[in-house]
Structure formats: C-alpha cells, structure tokens
C-alpha cells in the first residue's frame, strides 16, 4: 500500500456560539486507503467531513493536502483541489433527469444551448461504468427508488476526478447487492490511489472494507487503528469510552407505581411494534442512532403521523377523546387527552417565530384557559404569561417580544412553557437541549425534575447519553424502528447502551424476514441491514 499521506489535519476545532462540536482533531489520511470514521451521534464525524469538503469552515486548526496548505472556503474550492463529498442527505434535484443531475455542474452546451445527445451519452457512460445500466438517463430522479438515487449521487461524485472522496453513510439506503457493488468500486478507486474517508454505523461493513479506523468521541480524537486488529465490539468500546454513567448521588427518582401512559404494539412507518409504558413521576429516556426511529415514535404517539396499528392509552381518560382503535388521529386529540410534545425542530414546527412570547405561550390553551365565548381574556393571559416567564427565567424585554429575537435556550423555554400553561400530564421531549447553551440546559434539566416531582410523566428522546444519564430514571434503546432494550439506573452503562444501539447492525445474520428471497443469503454471508 502506498504510505503517502494525502490529508493532514492539525488541531481542527469548530464552535457554534458557546458550543464546541469539534475539539482539536488531528489525523492523517493516506492516498490509496479507505479510512473509516467512527463515533456515536454527535461525535463530530459529519462536522469534520464538512470542514474537509469546504461546506463549513473551521474555527481553529489547519489542514494540509498533499504538500500544500489547504483551507477550502467553499465546496467548489474543495472540488477544485480534488476533494469530493457525498453527504448523507441526497442532494439531487428530483424533477430533473438522471443525466442532468449527473452532469449538473458541467452540462454539455454550445453557447448556452443544451446538447441533449452528448448529455445523455456522457451520462450513460458514467452510469454504465458503475453498474447502473438499468437506470434510464432521461428518467426524472424522483422516479427512482432511494437506493438508486443514492447510487446515482455516488456515481456522480466518483465520475469526477478526485484525490479524496468522502462518503457519509453511503449504504444507509442501499440494498445488500448495491452495497457490494459500491464496495467493489471503492476498492478500484483505492487501487488507483484515491483516499477515501468513510462514515458508517455498520461496523461489520467497516471491518470488511476499511484499512484504518479513526474513532471520535464528543468531538475529540480518540485513536486511529489498523482495522485488522479490531472487532466490532472493540470499536463500540472505543466509541463509548468510560464516562461515569452511574452518578446516582445527584439523581433523585420521583417514579410512582401509577401508570401515566401505555403504548402497545405501536406501528407507524419506520416504527415497528413498539411497546412501552411510563409512570407518573417517571422520566424515561429514549436513545438510539440517528435514523433509528426515535422522532417517528414520538410523532406516532402524539398523533402527528397516523399509526397503522397499536394503542396509546393515557391513565386519566376522563376528558380524553379518542378513536376506537385507541390511537390519536391528530395532535388535537392527543392534547385534549393530556399529552404534550416539545418538538426537535422548534423553528419548523414548534414556535411561531414572528409572534410574541405571549402568543406562543398561550397557543395550546387559548380556547380552554384564556377565552370566554370566543373572546380573549387579555388580562388573564398577560398575568399567566408574566408569571411563567419569571418562573422559567426566560430572558426578554417584555412578553410582547418576538420569539425570533430570543436566544435558542430561551426559545426552547417558551416551547416548553406552552405545555406547562396547558397543564399536560405526559410530556414528550424530542432533543430538548439541542443547540442551547449550558446554563439553559441546566434550567431544562431542573424543569424536567420539577415536572417529575409534580407527578408528570416525561419521555425524553436524546442523542446525548450524558444528558439521559443525568436526568432519567430509565433508558430505552431503539434500533431500526424497534425498542430493543430498556435499562434502569442500576443496570445501564454507556457501553451496554451503545451495544444495544448497534445491535441491529452487528449481529450476524441480521436480516429482516421477508426482505430476502430464499437462496439469496449463503451461510456466513452477512448482509448489513438489508433494506431493499
């Protein structure tokens, strides 16, 4: 193997405001190697790759590409230096044809007029080279399956001359056969001296194709090892580290025996057959890898997405309106039964950004608490909002201030305040501390505790294990749409939870029944999470 170092990073750091997501990362990538990046959610893999490919710029540190200082300002700049990235999210334009997408940045033209024949011929050549001969060049990209779209995108990147190729979860949407094809191409590229940075949660895949593995944890560099010496379990151990996970002294449980909410065999799209229960005063954490269906589970419980089977039962049904099947048909029914959901993306679907703190705080309870015969009770509204703004220490000039002008932490407090005013019984939190500073985070943790002390039940989805360790009484782990294991304070550890999170991806022979035709799998032939 060519030992020539192509990319070298020195002390790369990335800060967003007061939050540091990447801290002092130094690593070397050699020409002609497949270099896997491993780490739990939020370990900084994607951030690192975005810096290398010019999508974002680092707050500190330097890079060297070949013999030159490398500091890409834009993706175009990076591409000019021979660095290509295929991101996790598809970056194709659905309504344009496959050929147009493949050659989007260099459409063959004469004086601005498209040369259709050349376009399709060139695209055909590229697709054929990557075994996509069954994909028609004139088909609109949106008519292809996700797997094929992913392959088209990868082919587009591979077709360009590059020295360094970055692939972020390329196999997430690929079937086993497609993935194998991809690995074939990667080997060819490696042979041609291209360096490849490869991110994947599928550890067996990494073990098979990567030459070296670099592990990141909490934005920090941990180690780089030759893959040959590593087993999947070793990788998990390296990723999870040995953080103190049983800090029981600080934690006080308010869990009672009284049931607050039961979810039975809930199925909704990606979420399959999930059963769980929370008691009054309990704080239940839910974790799992990105894409394991955590958000989807909360949405299904809340009626935001329509579940296809299963039941959601709240203990106090006195004012509950529900469908016969025992599921909520819309969030309105869920709220009427005492459920509340603080959404992950507060700007998209949590808050009315251009409206005042007062309007946002009372939105869910306007009809019930702040109106009489349809007329607003403005004085009462202001009184309650001022009270809660003080109680939650929401920093603002007045309650008429627009929410958009608040800091992330204070915005999140407003999103929570809405449900406190509404007097909900069961709170669903989706990443409650995403993008907020340490002080606000502390405030949210205290709030969770006081909710529990008041006998409310909380379900907290988070990628941040430390957060769950600190706040929760128990933690359930999701993997590939299912709840795989639930841990108590006594039994949990970072490593056990990580094992459970990856369980669907490392167990040999993990193939969902029905996904594979007989004879497709030979004994010992591991199909990583085959999702045709």
């Amino acid at each position, binding site marked *: 193997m060519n030992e020539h170092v192509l990319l070298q990073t020195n002390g790369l750091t990335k800060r967003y405001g007061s939050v540091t997501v990447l801290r002092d990362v130094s690593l070397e990538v050699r020409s002609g190697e497949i270099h896997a990046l491993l780490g739990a959610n939020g370990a900084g893999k994607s951030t690192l790759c975005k810096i290398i490919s010019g999508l974002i710029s680092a707050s500190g540190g330097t890079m060297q590409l070949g013999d030159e200082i490398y500091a890409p300002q834009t993706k175009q700049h990076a591409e000019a230096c021979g660095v290509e990235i295929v991101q996790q999210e598809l970056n194709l334009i659905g309504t344009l044809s496959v050929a147009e997408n493949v050659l989007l940045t260099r459409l063959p033209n004469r004086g601005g007029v498209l040369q259709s024949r050349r376009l399709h011929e060139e695209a055909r050549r590229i697709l054929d080279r990557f075994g996509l001969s069954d994909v028609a060049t004139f088909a609109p990209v949106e008519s292809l399956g996700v797997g094929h779209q992913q392959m088209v995108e990868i082919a587009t990147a591979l077709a360009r001359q590059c020295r360094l190729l970055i692939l972020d979860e390329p196999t997430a949407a690929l079937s086993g056969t497609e993935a194998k094809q991809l690995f074939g191409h990667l080997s060819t590229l490696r042979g041609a001296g291209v360096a490849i940075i490869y991110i994947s949660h599928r550890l067996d895949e990494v073990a098979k194709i990567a030459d070296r593995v670099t592990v990141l944890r909490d934005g920090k560099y941990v180690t780089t090892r030759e893959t040959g010496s590593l087993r999947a379990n070793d990788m998990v151990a390296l990723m999870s580290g040995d953080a103190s996970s049983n800090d029981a002294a600080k934690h006080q449980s308010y869990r009672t025996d009284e049931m607050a909410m039961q979810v039975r065999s809930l199925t909704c799209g990606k979420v399959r057959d999930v059963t769980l229960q929370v008691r009054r005063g309990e704080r239940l954490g839910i974790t799992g890898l990105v894409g394991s269906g955590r958000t989807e589970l909360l949405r299904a419980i*809340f009626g*935001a997405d329509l579940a296809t089977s299963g039941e959601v039962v709240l203990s106090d049904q006195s004012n509950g309106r529900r469908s016969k099947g025992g599921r909520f048909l*819309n*969030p*309105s029914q*869920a*709220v*009427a039964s005492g459920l509340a*959901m603080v*959404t992950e993306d507060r700007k*998209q*679907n*949590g*808050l*009315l*950004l*251009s*409206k005042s703190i007062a*309007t946002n705080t009372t*939105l*869910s309870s*306007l*009809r019930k608490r*702040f*109106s009489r015969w*349809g*007329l*607003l009770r*403005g004085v009462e509204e202001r009184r309650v909002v001022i009270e809660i703004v003080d109680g939650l220490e929401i920093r603002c000039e*007045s309650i008429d201030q627009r929410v958009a002008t608040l800091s992330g932490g204070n915005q999140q407090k407003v999103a929570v305040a*809405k449900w406190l005013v*509404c007097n909900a019984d069961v709170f669903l939190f989706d990443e409650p501390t995403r993008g907020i500073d340490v002080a606000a985070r502390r405030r949210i943790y205290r709030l969770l505790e006081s909710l529990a002390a008041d006998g409310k039940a909380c379900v907290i989805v988070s990628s941040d294990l430390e957060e769950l360790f600190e706040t929760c009484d128990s933690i359930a782990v999701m993997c590939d749409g299912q709840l795989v294991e639930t841990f108590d304070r006594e039994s949990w550890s970072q490593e056990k939870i990580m094992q459970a999170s990856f369980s669907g991806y490392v167990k040999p022979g993990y193939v969902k029944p029905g996904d594979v035709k007989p004879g497709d799998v030979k004994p010992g032939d591991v199909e990583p999470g085959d999702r045709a």
Partner: protein
Amino acid sequence: MNRSKWFQTIVQYGGLLIVLVLLILVFSVSSKNFFQTSTLVTIANQVPDLTFLAVGMTLVLIVRGIDLSVGSLLALSSAVLGVLMAKQGWSIGSALVAAMLVAGLCGTINGLISVGFGIPSFIVTLGMLEIARGATKAVTDSQSVYIGSNVEWFGQPLGSVPFSPAFVAAVLAVIIGQFILTRTVFGRYCVAIGTNNEAVRMSGIRSAPYAIAVFGISGLMCGLAGLAQTSRLSTADPNGAVGIELAAIAACVIGGTSLMGGRGSVISSFIGVLIIQVLQTGLAQIGVADANKQIITGTVIVVAVLLDALRIRWDQHS
C-alpha cells in the same frame, strides 16, 4: 409599557396616515375643488364596496390564502338582489340575506376545496371567479336589472350627514373585523395558522375549520359589497366589478398585510382602500388622462409596499 404600546400603534398606522394626508394635501393644492364636502361625499360613496371586500380579503391573506373570486361573487350577489327585488318583489332585507347566503356558500366551497384538499387557493378561487361570473349571467340573462328606489336609499347620504348607510355599514365591518382579528380566539388562530400551520397543528389545534371559515366570511363580505354597489348604481350589472379583486388585494397590501400570511390589520387595509380611492378621485379631478391615472395608481401601490418592506427590515434590525 403603555407608552411603547402607543408608540407601536403610531408606527403601525402612522406611515399609512402620512401617505393619506400627503395625497390629500397634494390634491388640495393642485385642485381648488378637491378640499370640499362634495369630494368627501363622492369618496365616501365610492368606498363601501371595496371596503367590504378588503375586510374579507385581509383575513384570507392572513391565513396565507388569496381570494380571486370576490369580484364575481360581488356581481353574483348583486344579480341575486336584482332578480329577487325587481322580479320577485322581495324586500331588501330578505333579498340581502339570500345574496349573502349564496356568496357565503361559494366562499365556503372555495375554502373546503382549497383547505380540505390542499390545493392552492389561487387556483380554486380563479375557477370560482369564472363559475360565479357565468352564474351571474345565467341568473340575469346577461341583462342589467334595474331596481330603483327600493335599493337606492342604502347608498344615499343620510339627510344632513354626508355618509350613506352603506358607508356606515362598511366602517362597522372594519371595526368588527379588527375586533375579531385582535380580540378573539378565532382571530388569534388565523394569525397563527398563517404564520406556521405545522406549529399550530403540533400545538393541538385543528386549523382546517378556521381556514375554511375565513373563506366563508370573505364570501359573506362579497354579499354586502354586492348590496353596496347595487344601491349606488340602482342597478344589478352582470358585467360589473370586473377586476375589483385586484384593487382589494392592493388595498390590503398597501395596508401592510403580508401575502406570505400571518400579518395584517383590517384597519390598515381600510386606510389602503381610502388611499386608492382618494388617488382615483383626486386624479380625475385634476384632469389626469386615464392612461396616466393607471400608471400613477400602479406606482403608488409598488412604492407603498416598498416602504412597508423597508419598515419591516428596520423593525427587525432594531
């Protein structure tokens, strides 16, 4: 607190009122006849139709919709009034109820289809524009229907006062509309829906009934506007009120109502209507040619919106 609220109110309406006063000043200087009671009467006489439409349109724009059918619905209500009063001998009261029911129903259908099926209201109401105009012609046989004094009184000044009942009713509609918008659950929900419908849904509110009702209200306003126009002309004209929907939208936008939803004020829209009407009347009085009148009106609309955009930008930076 109170002072800043006053300040906000001044900022909100001040700019518009300045534009209105400036226009009046300019016309008073350039024409001796402008600043007189007779001009006031003329303007007050012209204003009600557009005001009713603008009240409904403001609500529709706030929930992020648009209603292009208001001109045709106005004509349809006018036709219903004409046929029922002149040919069937109905009283003005019962004929008005019938006209408002017809227009309100059409508006509700607009809402049901666009909100219920998620089709842009632009398209649905464009269809209704054609349908209602056709229905108008069918009802009247494409002939103007003369009604006469039974309806005229509604548009005539009340003795010594220079204002007609139609004008008074229009101002009442503005006041009630503003009240609904700012002081009721319905109004608050409308603003919320137009701001971020998904956030409203995730807050446990079913938004569809409110959005549909808004289109229904816009239809009812068309019924009232139909009466206002019919009383002014003494006649139901099946070819009348073509293009008035654009004037109504212009009035709302001049008043600062956002086409992107979530922001608007009925009072501001009313000032928008006054600005348009003063401009029309004033330009006619100083003898500007029709062609130039249109150019000037269009320019004022664009400038007004431009000023509003600048105001918002300034507002967000400070």
